[in-house]
């Protein structure tokens, strides 16, 4: 498996997410499905690879998210097939005079619809499922073993369906920027001043989309020390003809009173609505709160993480190289361990991320629309199944 050599080499959660999904797709297609319990086998295989992937870079939460999404897809497809089969059986068993139309209609129901139906029966209904206009006609699955005759075809179908669904997921990840950007016009109004920090592709696409819709607005870009990706963003914005002002991170508070909205990207969105974002974001969020400026976070659905943050400043953080802060050669005499007590007097700490608590976030914009931080857990319940929160093989013995 090519899983090992990927630590710290892919930049950005979108790329990581896409590659993870592609890798898992190939795992699934290569996995030989046994006669019984195919879903279990697939889940096992995905978990085995997923575990390694997550261990390779525990800080990149997108990897774990995608692994869980794929697991969820397998479960859903399996469930939908079972319900479909049972439904079929039930229908054929109950009476013969049921007209064929109904049967055909039932079997040709999209897997997603059936899954949604099954979900609605198994779980407290989410807002989305309630709104969806699904025929909640599927019977409650009963624990009766379905006929063995159609098992082999079913297994092949399961694998096929799962791969289809994973392809859809990959498609979603690829197009998430566009889907988020589509909503830009609803949020950015004429002559507004937008502030952002650092550089995020989601944010830049969002701003470009608004610009293309002939909105005229101004952007303040905080440079995002120590990686100064804000400089690149400013360059891109100017290239698209947007009025841009570059400021230092420390000037954010001074400028925030003139800003109408803060729009930023995120590294990950946790289940409680907290955000893991590039360092300096908490500062911006606090400033925005102080001046009652809306703080909007853009995040593709692959960034939604079903975990709750515990000690996020340390456990979900990444300490990057101190050389981003200062030149090692310049300060080499401060770093001389050879004299004194043997430990240097100068320490350089360079955390990559900040944790922004949910109460500072006004709105999340994902590819599924805008959401309140307190709604995040429901969104997450749609994407992940509760069994997969812990991706460890020994936890699935009972499956």
């Amino acid at each position, binding site marked *: 498996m090519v899983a090992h050599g990927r630590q710290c080499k892919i930049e950005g959660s979108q790329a990581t997410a896409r590659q993870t999904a592609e890798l898992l797709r190939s795992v699934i297609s290569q996995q030989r499905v046994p006669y019984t319990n195919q879903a279990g086998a697939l889940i096992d295989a995905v978990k085995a690879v997923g575990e390694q992937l997550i261990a390779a870079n525990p800080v990149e939460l997108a990897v774990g998210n995608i692994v869980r999404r794929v697991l969820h897809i397998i479960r859903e497809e399996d469930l939908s097939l079972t319900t479909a089969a049972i439904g079929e059986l039930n229908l054929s068993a109950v009476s013969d005079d049921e007209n064929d139309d109904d049967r055909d209609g039932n079997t040709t129901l999209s897997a997603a619809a059936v899954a949604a139906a099954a979900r609605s029966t198994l779980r407290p209904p989410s807002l989305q499922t309630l709104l969806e206009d699904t025929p909640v006609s599927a019977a409650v699955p009963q624990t009766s073993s379905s006929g063995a005759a159609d098992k082999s075809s079913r297994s092949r179908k399961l694998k096929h369906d799962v791969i289809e669904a994973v392809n859809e997921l990959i498609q979603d990840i690829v197009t998430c920027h566009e889907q988020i950007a589509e909503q830009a016009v609803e949020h950015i109004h004429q002559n507004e001043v937008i502030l952002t920090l650092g550089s995020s592709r989601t944010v830049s696409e969002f701003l470009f989309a608004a610009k293309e819709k002939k909105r005229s607005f101004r952007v303040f870009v905080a*440079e995002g020390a120590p990686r100064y990706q804000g400089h690149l963003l400013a360059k891109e914005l100017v290239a698209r003809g947007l009025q841009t002002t570059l400021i230092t991170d420390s000037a954010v508070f001074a400028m925030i009173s003139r800003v109408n909205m803060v729009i930023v990207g995120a590294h990950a969105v946790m289940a409680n609505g907290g955000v893991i974002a590039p360092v300096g974001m908490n500062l911006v969020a606090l400033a925005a709160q102080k001046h009652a400026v809306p703080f909007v976070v853009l995040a593709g659905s692959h960034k939604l993480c079903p975990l709750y943050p515990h000690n996020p400043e340390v*456990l979900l953080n990444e*300490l990057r190289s101190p050389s981003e802060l200062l030149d090692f050669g310049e300060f080499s005499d401060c770093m001389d361990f050879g004299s004194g007590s043997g430990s240097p007097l100068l320490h350089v700490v360079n955390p990559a991320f900040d944790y922004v608590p949910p109460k500072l976030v006004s709105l999340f914009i994902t590819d599924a629309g805008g959401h309140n931080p307190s709604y995040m857990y429901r969104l997450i319940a749609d994407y992940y199944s509760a069994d997969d929160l812990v991706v460890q093989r020994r936890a699935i013995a009972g499956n």
Partner: protein
Amino acid sequence: MGAQKKRAAAAAAAARVSEDPDDLARQPLQAILLADSFTTKFRPITLERPKVLLPLVNVPMINYTLAWLEAAGVAEVFVFCCAHSKQVIDYLENSEWFSQPNFTVKTIESHNIISAGDALRLIYEQNVIHGDFVLISGDTVSNMSLTQALQEHKERKKKDNNAVMTMIIKKSKPSPITRQSRLGTDELFMAIDPNTKQLLYYEDKADHSKGTICLDKMLLAENPSISLHNDKQDCYIDICSPEVLSLFTDNFDYQHLRRHFVKGLLLDDIMGYKIFTHEIHSSYAARIDNYRSYDIVSKDIIQRWTYPYVPDVKFCGNRATKLERRGICFTAFNSEIEQSRSAQVGSFTVIGYGTKIGSNSKISDSVIGEGCTIGSNVLIEGSYIWDNVIIEDGCELRHVIVCDGVIMKAGAVLKPGVVLSFKVVIGERFVVPAYSKVSLLQQPTVHDSDEELEYADNSSGTVEFSSIQGTADQSNGEMTSESSEAHKPKLGTGGVGYIWSICEGGQEEEWRHSVAPIPEDKLTELSEAMDDDQELVTQDRTALSTSGELISDSNASEGDDNEDSKDDSVYFEKEVEATFLRAVEENVKVDHVILEVNSLRLSYNMTSADCAGAVFYSMMKLAIKTPHSSASELQQNTANIITTWQKLLKSYLLEIDEEIEIILKFEEMCLESAKEFSPLFARILHILYDKDILQEDAILRWADEKEGADESDKVFVRQSEKFIQWLREASEEED
């Protein structure tokens, strides 16, 4: 500074975006990794395990190098193994490096290689390097991006075919007091052309006592501007063109990469090969050369300068660790350690998998390996403890290295700078003195300072080890008695191992290269000495200005040269002597001996007068070594030897100067090394005259020269007065 820094960062970010992988992909980049440092700085540990497999923050060093090479876009690595090659190859075979896609690791094994030069010659013979390659040693830690350096190298190569090598350097200020870099290496002087970045001068063994370095005047004549640096650190990462290998083959006496190859190229203006430098700023690169750099690089890794090669990022099969916050600093932990609640683990500490820590123990700034057991009330400070070490209650360790399987009995104390090699046992309440090195192996007897012999010894270390380990395992008692026999102090009750006596450099130099920080008193001592020096210098200057007399620079440089050549000539003499003795023993033909001496002469750049002196010296040495009972017998022996080998000697006596040189040499011998000859001086002079080795002119001129000398110098002239008189008369008669 801030703005500049930002620009640099932005540029780096831009470079990252525009980084074109095609360029690298066109020709797969190769690398040669020398898995042997060909030195003995890490003894006694390296007697049992090769240096590249020593754990650096719980990961064998070679993994850092390989991980970096992989990340830097190298496609194929040739690992050259020499000492303990089996261990290296076994390790690599069991690691994941052999199964990487797009990254092949191949090993080249050889046992009789004693230097980097020989290794490269062997690789050249194998004809595996096809294009530019990275030359690196297996103990280098880096995270730099090669793209830019490689690009520069290629562009230079296109313009100028003689630009064969790009050396990576990094800024690092040496300490003004100790005159060594933070990595414990000697202060390095480099002259670099600021425009082209060409390296013009490289000196790592400058003589600090003199306070001068000498540059060839031609350098200044040829290069309008030169910047002379002493704040650069050589990273020992070189990007080389394939010519480098053939250069090594052409110059078979190149051994050391820097001392011979780099300096050789810089001095040699016939071929006109050029070396360029590439300075890295924000990225990290350092080579572990001695115990001090082991300490410093470990600390750099823990402080994350080598990111992403840090303990909590998985880069090569190391177990993932997690960070914990201690105050504002971070400690790397493995998830499965047993730690007593009352134990205090301080900041910048890495603790390996499965280690147990007892109550009230204090650990700070240290690295602890896997499976260690640490008792209660133990104090560990700035130390490196490898795997499966047992430290019993109440031990104290400050700034030490403790290798695998060591057992420290209760209450033992290790003073700063101690190195305990594998499986040593320290007895109860035993205090190991500072800077001592303890090993189960006995210290090999020190050969003369001939480095090559030490190299050779290095590779035979394994054999020695296996035999001694057998005895060590038999019983502790036997071992201790053995150690007491061997005049070494015991390591307390139940202790096993030998304390090595401190070699050559002596205690004086130990502190420079040990893991312990430089003691305060040493620093004050040195700075006082430096102040004195400065006073002297200023005094000199004032003296100069008052007297108005200028000492020309050439004077100083001459002195330096003499010093150098003196060194060389000593080596040369030794070599010639060895050749000669071998010739006598093995009855080699005179012609062959002449040939061999000639090749020595070329490699040491000596004149024929030097050769004559050396040959004569060895002949006389032989004469005095042949058993004799009386002076007359000695004279007879000498006469015999001179008769047998006169042809050899004569081949170097082209002019009268050489003959005088012989007489002077003989005189010197009689005065110093071979006093037995002194009564025979005149007679042997006569023999030499008889055998036509010396002409009368030479003897007479020698006598004339000595006329004006001190009384003490005239002893031998007096002795041979009669003979000289006779010669004079004879020549007058002829006239």
